[in-house]
C-alpha cells in the first residue's frame, strides 16, 4: 500500500522537495537491508547497496527519476571528497618513503596494462563490427584510458567492511588514490589522438 501511494506520489504533482526525504530514507533503509542479505551470501555489502539502487531506480520501481539523481550531484561530490580525504589520511609520508618506488611501478604497470589490453580488445571488437579501423582505434584509446581508473568508493567500502589492514591494503589505497591521476593523463593523451583520428580539431573536452 505504501509502495502504491509512493508511486502515486511520484506521478502526481507533489512538490519535489517534499518526498525527497522519504526517498532518501527508502534508499538508505533499503540499502541496509540489501547489504544484510548480500552479507549473508558472503558478497560485499556495497553490491547490496547498488542492487537496491537498481531496484528503486529507473529500471524497476522508478521511485527515483533521473532528474532527482542529477540533483544529487553535489552530494556525490561531497561523498567522494570525504572518501578521498580518508584515503589521504592513510597515506603517511613514511609509507611513501618506504614503498614509494614500488607504488609508482605498480601504478604504471597496472594502469598501462589495463589501458593497453582494453584499448587493443575494444579496437578489435569495434573494427570487427564496424569495419572502420580509425574510429575503432579512437574508441579503443578513450575506453582504455578510462579503464585505468579505479573507483575508490566501492573498493574502500569493501576494505572497511572486512576491516582489512596490512601492506596490501595500504598499497590498494595508494594505488586507488593515484590512478585517477594516471587515468586523467592517459585520457588527455588518448582523447587528443582520437580527435585527430576521427578528425575533430577542437581541443580537449
Amino acid at each position, binding site marked *: 500500500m505504501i509502495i502504491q501511494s509512493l508511486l502515486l506520489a511520484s506521478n502526481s504533482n507533489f512538490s519535489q522537495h*517534499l518526498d525527497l526525504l*522519504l526517498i*532518501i530514507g527508502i534508499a*538508505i533503509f533499503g540499502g541496509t537491508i540489501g547489504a544484510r542479505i548480500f552479507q549473508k551470501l558472503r558478497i560485499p555489502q556495497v553490491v547490496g547497496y547498488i542492487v537496491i539502487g537498481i531496484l528503486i531506480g529507473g529500471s524497476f520501481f522508478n521511485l527515483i527519476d533521473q532528474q532527482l539523481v542529477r540533483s544529487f550531484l553535489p552530494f556525490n561530490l561531497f561523498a567522494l571528497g570525504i572518501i578521498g580525504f580518508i584515503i589521504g589520511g592513510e597515506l603517511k609520508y613514511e609509507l611513501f618513503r618506504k614503498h614509494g618506488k614500488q607504488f609508482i611501478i605498480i601504478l604504471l604497470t597496472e594502469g598501462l596494462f589495463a589501458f593497453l589490453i582494453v584499448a587493443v580488445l575494444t579496437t578489435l571488437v569495434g573494427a570487427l563490427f564496424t569495419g572502420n579501423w580509425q574510429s575503432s582505434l579512437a574508441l579503443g584509446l578513450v575506453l582504455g584510458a578510462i579503464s585505468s581508473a579505479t573507483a575508490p568508493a566501492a573498493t574502500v567500502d569493501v576494505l572497511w567492511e572486512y576491516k582489512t589492514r596490512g601492506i596490501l591494503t595500504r598499497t590498494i589505497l595508494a594505488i586507488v588514490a593515484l590512478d585517477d591521476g594516471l587515468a586523467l593523463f592517459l585520457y588527455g593523451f588518448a582523447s587528443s589522438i582520437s580527435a585527430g583520428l576521427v578528425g575533430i580539431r577542437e581541443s580537449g573536452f
Partner: protein
Amino acid sequence: MFDILSNILTNNMNLILLMGIAIFAGTIGAKIIQKLHIPQVVGYVAIGLILGPVLKIIPSQTVQNLEMFNLFALGIIGFLVGGELKREIFAKFGKQVPIVLLFEGVTAALLVGVLSFLVMWHFSSWDTALAVGVVFGAICSATDPASTISVLWEYKARGPLTSMITAIVTLDDALALMLYAISVSIAGIVTGHQETSLLTSLLEALYEMVGAAALGLMAGIGLSSILKRIEDTEKILVVTLSSAMLIIGTAILLHMDVILACMALGVTLINIKSKRIESSFNSLRRFFAPMYVLFFVLVGARVNVSYFNKMIGVLVVAYVGGSITGKTLGSYLGGYFSGAAQTVKNYLGFCLYPQGGIAVGLLIVASHRFESEVSSIMLLVVIIGAFILQIIGPIGVKVGATKAGEMGLNVTEEDLIKNYKVGDVMNKDAPAISAGTPLSDVLKTVSSTEYFYYSVVDDQKKIIGALTMDGIRNTFATMELNDWLVALDIVEPVTVKVTPDIPLSRALEQMQEQHIEHVPVVVSSQNNESAGILDARAVHRKLSAEVLEKQQEADRMFLRPGSGRDAARPK
C-alpha cells in the same frame, strides 16, 4: 566583494561550499559567544545574520530552497526531544512535575498569546493577529535546556529546585511541540479553510496529530526490534537515521505533523527498554551536530532586518514580558497546586526564562503556514526576543538557585580538594613523639591513639623522622624487644614534608607520586617544627563526609515541603 562571492555561490549552485562556510563560521561564532557565557545557539544565529542579511553571502533564495533540510532538522530535533521523555522522570517526582509543567507552560502560552494578539490587532488585521498570538504563545513555553542546565552545573546546585528545573526544561520542549500542534490547528480552523466546515477542519487537525502519534509509535516498535539485531555502531546510526527520514517523509506525504511523529518515535524508542537504544540516540546526536549548526545559521540568514519597525519593537516587549511574567506566575501556581517545596514554588519561575533552539525551530515550521511577510515579522520578533531572554535567563537561574539555597551543594571531592589548603584538613592533634621516648611508652601512645603515623621530634620539636606502623612491625620481627630501645632507634627518614599553607591538591599530588599515604606537616619551610600530620586516607574520608553532608542537606530539602529559604540555607 561579497556580492561577487555570493554570485559565484548562487550561479554555480555550489551548495557544498555554502554549507561549509555556514557550518565553519557558525562554529567560530559559537566559540566567541561561549566566552561571554551565552549559549552556542545564539552564536550560530548571529553568524547567520552576518552571513545572510548583512554580507549577503548566503542568498535568501538558497535558504528558501533548503526547506527540505529544515524539515529534516526539525524532525531530528523532535526525535531527540522525544528521547528525553523517559518514564523515570515522571516516576521520580510523581504528580508534581506534570502539574508544574502544565501550569508554567500554559500560563506563559496564554499570557504571551493574548499580549501579542492584542499588540498585533492594534497594527494589523484580526486573523493575522490571531495567527501571531497562537504561534508565539505555543513556542514561548519551550525553555532552552542548554543555558539553564549549564548555569546549574557551573554553580554546583543541588536540591529540589534543581531537580525540578532539570525535569521541567527537558519536558517543556515536548509541551511546546504539543501546544504548537494543537494551537496551530485551532488557528487554522478559525482563520483559514473558510470553504470547509468546522467539523472537517477539526477532523483534519485530529488526523494530523493522532495520525502522527500513531505513525511514530508503530515505527518506534519496528525500529526497536530491528535495532536489537544490529551490533555495529555505524549500522545503528544508518538504521536510526534512515528510519527518522522515512518517518519525516511519510508524515509529509500523508499530511501529518512531522515533529509530533518524530517525537512519538523518540518516546516509543526510549521507553522500550533495549540495549542499543542509548547508542542509537547518541550516534544520531553526534551525526546531527554539524546539521544543528547549519540549521541555526540558516535561521539567522533568513531574518529580514529591513522589516524592523515600531510594531516589531512593541511585539518584542510583549513577547519577552509575557514570557517572563507567565513563567514566573505559572510556576508559582503550579507549585502551589502540586504542593511542591516552598523553594520550588517561589523560585522555579526565575530559572525558566532562557529560550533557544526549539522556539526558533518551531517558528520555522510555522513559517510554512503564513505569508512571507507575516513569517518574516514573527521570525524577527522571536529572534530578538530569544537574544534578550538568553541574556536575562542565566542571571535569573543564578538568582533563583541562590535564593533557594541550592548553590554549592553538589560539590565533589575534587572541588573541595581544589579549594582547601593542607592546614584545613591536617591532623593537628596527632602526637609528636620525642626522640628519646622509650619503646614501651611509644607503644602506649600508639595504642591510646588511632593514628598510623607519628612524627619523631627532637628537643626543639624539630622533625627528625617518622614512625610508621610498618616500621614498628618490622622492629618486632627482627629485633628482640629491649627496654633500652627508644623511638630514635626505629625512626625512618622523612622524604617529603609539607607546610600548612600549600594547596591540598599539590600535597596530595606529591604524596601520590611518592606512593606514600602520610606526610609530616611542618610549621613553615624554614622552621622544621612539627605542626601535625597529613593522612591521605583521613583526608579523603573527611572530604567525602563533607560531600555527603552537603548532599544530605540538599536531599533533606526534598523532605521538607514548605521549608523556607532560611531553613534551607547552608551554614
